[in-house]
C-alpha cells in the first residue's frame, strides 16, 4: 500500500464519529432543560480542542491557555457593546484578536523547554488577568463587563432563556472548527507537528521548519480558544474576570487529560465527562463535590483511562451477557 493511501485511510470518517455528531445535533431536539449545560459542554469542548492542538499534537504544554479564552471573551464583549451587537462579526473579531495575541506570545513561548513554557504561559495569563483587573473602565474590573445585548443569530433567532439557540450556535461553531482541525491534523502540516513533538532534532534534520510550524499551530490554537471565549461571552451576555482565571486554564487541562491528548475527540470526551461530573456532583453535594471530583481524578490517573474503560466494559459484559 502506498504512503498516500495509508494516510488517507487514517483520515477517513468512521461510523462512531458520525454517530457522535448526529447525537450531538439530535440533542437540539431534546425538550428544554439541559441545553444550558450542553452549551457549556460545547464551549469547553472547543476550548479543550484548542489546547489539544498544541499539547497533543505539537507537544507545547501550557498552563495559561485561559489568556486566549479570556481575550476572545473580552474582545467579543467589547465589540458587542461598542460596535455592533451582531454575534457573527463579534465571533470573527474575537478569533482575529486572540490569534494576533497568540502569534505575538508564541515568540515568547517557543524560546525555552517545557518548564520555561509552563512558566511563560502561566505568566502571560496572569499579566492579562491583572491588566483586565486594572482597566475597570473597559472591562468592568472585578464587577464584570455588563450591559451586553447580543443580537439575534442569523438576524432571526434570539438567545432565549432555555439556551437552545445558544447551544445550536456553539455546537455549529464547534463542528465547523472541528472539521477544520481534523483536516489540518491529517494534512502533511499536522504530521510534521507530530514529528516535531516526538523528536524535534530529527524533524529539523528532515527539513521540517520547526519554529514556523510551532508558531503557526500556536496561533491557530489561540484563535480556537478565542472562539470558545467569544461563544461564552455571547451566549451568557456577560464577561467576568474569571474568564482569565488560572482555574480556567487548569480546568481545560483537566478536561483534556480526562479525555486523552493527541486525538481530537479527547477534548470533546473530556469536556463531556468533566462538565457532567461537575454538574451531578455539585448538585448532590454542594459543599463537598470537589472531594469527589478530586478522588475521581486520582483514580483515573492511577488506574489509567484504558484500564478503566476495559474494567467498565468487562463489568457490563458480566451484567449483560
Amino acid at each position, binding site marked *: 500500500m502506498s504512503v498516500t493511501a495509508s494516510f488517507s485511510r487514517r483520515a477517513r470518517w468512521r461510523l462512531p464519529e458520525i454517530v457522535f455528531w448526529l*447525537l450531538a445535533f439530535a440533542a437540539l431536539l431534546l425538550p428544554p432543560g*439541559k441545553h*444550558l449545560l*450542553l452549551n457549556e459542554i460545547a464551549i469547553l469542548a472547543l476550548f479543550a480542542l484548542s489546547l489539544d492542538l498544541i499539547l497533543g499534537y505539537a507537544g507545547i504544554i501550557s498552563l495559561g491557555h485561559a489568556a486566549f479564552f479570556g481575550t476572545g471573551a473580552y474582545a467579543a464583549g467589547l465589540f458587542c457593546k461598542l460596535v455592533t451587537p451582531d454575534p457573527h462579526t463579534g465571533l470573527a473579531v474575537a478569533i482575529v484578536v486572540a490569534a494576533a495575541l497568540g502569534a505575538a506570545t508564541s515568540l515568547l513561548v517557543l524560546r525555552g523547554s517545557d518548564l520555561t513554557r509552563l512558566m511563560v504561559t502561566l505568566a502571560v495569563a496572569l499579566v492579562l488577568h*491583572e491588566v483586565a*483587573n486594572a482597566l475597570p473602565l473597559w472591562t468592568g474590573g472585578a464587577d464584570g463587563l455588563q450591559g451586553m445585548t447580543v443580537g439575534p443569530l442569523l438576524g432571526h433567532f434570539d438567545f432565549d432563556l432555555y439556551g437552545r439557540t445558544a447551544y445550536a450556535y456553539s455546537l455549529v461553531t464547534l463542528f465547523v472548527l472541528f472539521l477544520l482541525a481534523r483536516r489540518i491534523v491529517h494534512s502533511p502540516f499536522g504530521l510534521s507537528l507530530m514529528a516535531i513533538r516526538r523528536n524535534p532534532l530529527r524533524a529539523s534534520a528532515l527539513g521540517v521548519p520547526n519554529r514556523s510550524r510551532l508558531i503557526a499551530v500556536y496561533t491557530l490554537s489561540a484563535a480556537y480558544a478565542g472562539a470558545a471565549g467569544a461563544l*461564552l461571552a455571547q451566549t451568557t451576555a*456577560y464577561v467576568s474576570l474569571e474568564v482569565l*482565571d488560572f482555574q480556567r486554564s487548569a480546568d481545560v487541562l483537566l478536561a483534556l487529560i480526562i479525555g486523552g491528548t493527541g486525538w481530537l475527540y479527547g477534548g470533546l470526551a473530556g469536556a*463531556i465527562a468533566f462538565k457532567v461530573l461537575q454538574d451531578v456532583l455539585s448538585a448532590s453535594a454542594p459543599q463537598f463535590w470537589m472531594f469527589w471530583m478530586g478522588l475521581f481524578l486520582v483514580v483515573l490517573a492511577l488506574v489509567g483511562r484504558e484500564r478503566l474503560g476495559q474494567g467498565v466494559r468487562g463489568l457490563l459484559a458480566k451484567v449483560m451477557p
Partner: protein
Amino acid sequence: MLRREILTIAALSLLPVVAFAQDTVKIGLILPMTGQQASTGKQIDAAVKLYQAQHGTTVAGKKVEVILKDDTSVPDVTKRLAQELVVNDKVAVLAGFGITPSAMATAPIATQAKVPEVVMAAGTSSITEASPFVVRTSFTLAQSAVPMAEWAVKNGIKRVVTMVSDYGPGIDAEKSFSDRFKAEGGTIIENLRVPMRAPDFAPVLQKAADTKADALFVFVPSGAGAQFVKQFVERGLDKGGMKLIATGDVTDDDQLAGMGDAVVGVINAHNYSANHDSALNKSYVEAFRKANGGLRPNFMSVGGYDGMHLIYEALKKTGGDASGDKLMAAMKGLAWESPRGPISIDPDTRDIVQNIYIRKVEKKDGELYNVEFATIPNVKDPVKAAKK
C-alpha cells in the same frame, strides 16, 4: 464511552418534569459553597436551614422547598444555574448571591423570567437597579461607610487614608466615605485600593503608614478581615498611633474571635453584631450556634435569615400566590423585627432600610465582640438617596 455519556445526558433530560407547582414553592438558593467566599455561603445556608427549622416548611398552605446550588463565586456559573433553576426546577424565587458580579449576572434572568431575586449578601448599591425584580436583605456598603465618616469627624479625626478592595462594593465604600468625610470638613489624604483576588496588604499598609494620618478607613470583603488584621499588626501599625476605623466586614463575627487582642478598640460601623442586645437576637445566636457546632452567626447569616422571612411573609400576603409580580408587590414596604433590629424594604428602591450601629471591639466573657454604643436609625442606601 462517548456515546454512552451522550445517551445519559439525553436520558436525564427526558425525565418527566414533576409538576406539582400548585402546592410547592421552590426557592433556588445560589451560594458560593466552595472557594474564596465559602464562609459567606456556609453562613447563609445555615441561616436558611435554621429559619425553616424554626418556622416550618409550610406557609400559606404551600410547601417551601429550597434547592441549594454552589456557584463557586464564578458569575457565568451563577447565571447558568439561575437559568436552569428557572427553566428546569420552575423556582418561584432566586436567592443568595455571595458577590456582586454574581448578583449582577443574574439580574437579566430575573427580569426576563419575572422571578424575584432576593440578594442575601452582595452589597454594591447599584444591584437593585439592575432589575425591577431585585430585592435586597443584606446591606449596602454606603449604609455603613457614611455613618462611619460622620462619627469620625465628630470624634476629632481630621485626616484619613482609605483602603478598600478594588471592586464594586469597595469603590462604593471609598466614595461614600470620602464624600461625606470631606463634606463634614475632614481631609482625605489618599484613596488606596488593593486587588480583590489574592490581596497583599503589606505595600499598601506601608504607604498608609507613611502618610501619618489620624486614621485608616478600611473595607475588605467578608472572609478577608482576618488576613488584613494579621498584616496590620505585623507592620506594627496598631502601635503607631494611627486609628483603625472600618466597615463591619473587617471585624466580621465569623473571624473576630481568632483575630487576637490587636483588634480591641477598633471602631467600626455595620448592620449586625452577634452581640446585639435584643431578646430575638439572643435566641437567634443561641439556636444558630447549637445547630452549627458553635459557629457564631455573622452579618451574612442575618441576610439569609431575613431573606427567608421576606419570602415567607410575602407568600402569606399573597395567600400563597407565587407569581413574580405579586410577590414583588407584597415584598415592597414589608417591615419586621430582625435579629439585627427593626428593618424594612424600601418600596421605591427595593433596598433594605435598617439601623446602623457604631461599634467598638471589646472582650466580653473572654471572647471578642463588636459592642454597639451608638445607633443611627433607619438608614436608607445613601448612594440611591443622593441620586434623587
